[in-house]
């Protein structure tokens, strides 16, 4: 069997490796954070910033809310041949004071989640495209 190659499903949204991070931007003038990356104009109405630093966002946060999906969503979601329910969490980052969505890591039971629980960012396969595994960021409860 040949080893499948691995590539992010979207370029420049997250880093990979043992301790992956989401990649955001921070306005050079007012220091507000953005995810996905904002690089044209600052969305703070009191700021006209147009230059941004690329920053790695906090890779841990607390669950704001969560939900499990039992039906196959429409395209452009790619489900593969057999659809499996999946969970999505909204996670609050303390330093950035923002909530970011993501699927929850495979194998984590919906019933084991609670609002306020601490989670960390991981990178997992989202779907396969030919011989390539396309990856995405996901949230996973921090082992206690």
């Amino acid at each position, binding site marked *: 069997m040949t080893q499948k190659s691995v590539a992010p499903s979207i370029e420049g949204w997250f880093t990979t490796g043992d301790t992956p991070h989401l990649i955001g931007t921070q306005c050079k003038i007012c220091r507000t954070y953005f995810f996905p990356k904002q690089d044209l104009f600052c969305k703070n109405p009191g700021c006209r910033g147009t230059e941004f630093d690329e920053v790695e966002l906090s890779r841990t946060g607390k669950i704001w809310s969560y939900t499990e*999906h039992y039906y196959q969503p429409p395209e*452009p979601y790619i489900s593969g041949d057999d659809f499996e329910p999946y969970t999505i969490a909204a996670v609050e980052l303390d330093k950035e004071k923002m909530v970011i969505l993501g699927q929850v890591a495979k194998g984590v039971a919906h019933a084991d989640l609670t609002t306020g629980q601490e989670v960390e960012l991981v990178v997992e396969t989202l779907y396969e495209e030919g011989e390539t595994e396309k990856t995405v960021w996901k949230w996973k409860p921090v082992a206690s």
Partner: protein
Amino acid sequence: MAKEVAVLGVGMHPWGKWGKNFVEYGIKACNDALDDAGLEWNDIEVVAGAETVRNGYAGYVAGATFAEALGWSGARVSTSYAACASGSQAINNARAMILADMADVILVVGADTTPKGFLAPNAGERWADPDWLRFRLMGCTNPTYFALYARRRMDLYGATEEDFAAVKVKNARHGMANPNARYHKEFTMEQVLASPMVADPLRLFEICATSDGAAAVVISSMEFARKHNVDPVKIRAVSTVTPTYPQTTIDMPYFSTDSAATVDAPALTFKDSIAQAAYEEAGLGPEDMSLAEVYDLSSALELDWYENIGLCPKGDAEKLLRDGSTQLGGRIPVNPSGGLASFGEAVPAQALAQVCELTWQLRGQAGDRQVEGAKAGITANVGLFGHGSSVICSV
């Protein structure tokens, strides 16, 4: 000076899955609204259409499409798109022309023909469109967001699955008395709780369907109404405010909220601010309302609205539901029309349908779903990309 305009006539095409062109529904609603107003098409000075994005070019230029279908009359035309608030934005444009003395009487109309199933993003590979990307990268549907709000109510305020089901049971019962509703079926708590789980904790019968339908409203200056010797229902406020930065509640179709690291979160959430702006403009408060029509895209979302429109403090919505305050006969009936639970959503027509219901209620013409002695009512809705609206009408 009071910024009031008159509702002279309202009309709807019943909601359903009729499989016809949206223009047919719209024309039926227009003619009913004209009859209700005692006017002819040639009396109308402006047509304000709410756009449907799912019906090709004719839908993009809805105002002109209806004007042509009714017969070119030289009327001025406008078309609005504001997602679920499209109908309110069309009313607001019409109202602005009346208050600016640019026109006396205007026909506002919205109609839709919808596809089956989940609302999906437009086709094609669109890597810069968050509405497309949320499906591709997360499988994040509209019910995802509704479910996140619902779960948070459970964990923060002690809402139960029975509460969510009870909203559906209530609205289904209300809708049985509405000839324009799509569903006329009573539900028991057990039936709702036995329906399949879609996005935990929300079940199939708790998430609104998509429907075909149309609604039209004829509005005029108060002077024009008096000349026609009528004592009309008045539009007291139309709020179409956008969010205030930073928007800290996760909202469709976004991946994240704004960051509150630099600028503190505003005192009011976006949905709070939609209603607040309407109350301020009307010079009325929640205590003056006899009824409310709110956007129950999910049954749980109706509970959020109780708080957003000021019927109770945050966290008290379940109490209001459980003590019967929001059912017909209660202190402040919510969704006496049956709401989206009984209609399903016909996006460009829905905000107009809410105004039609207020009008019938305030005239005392709502039949078996009549709110006794209704004096004033509020509508509220919210849609994609920072759109939302609230309309307040009074006798």
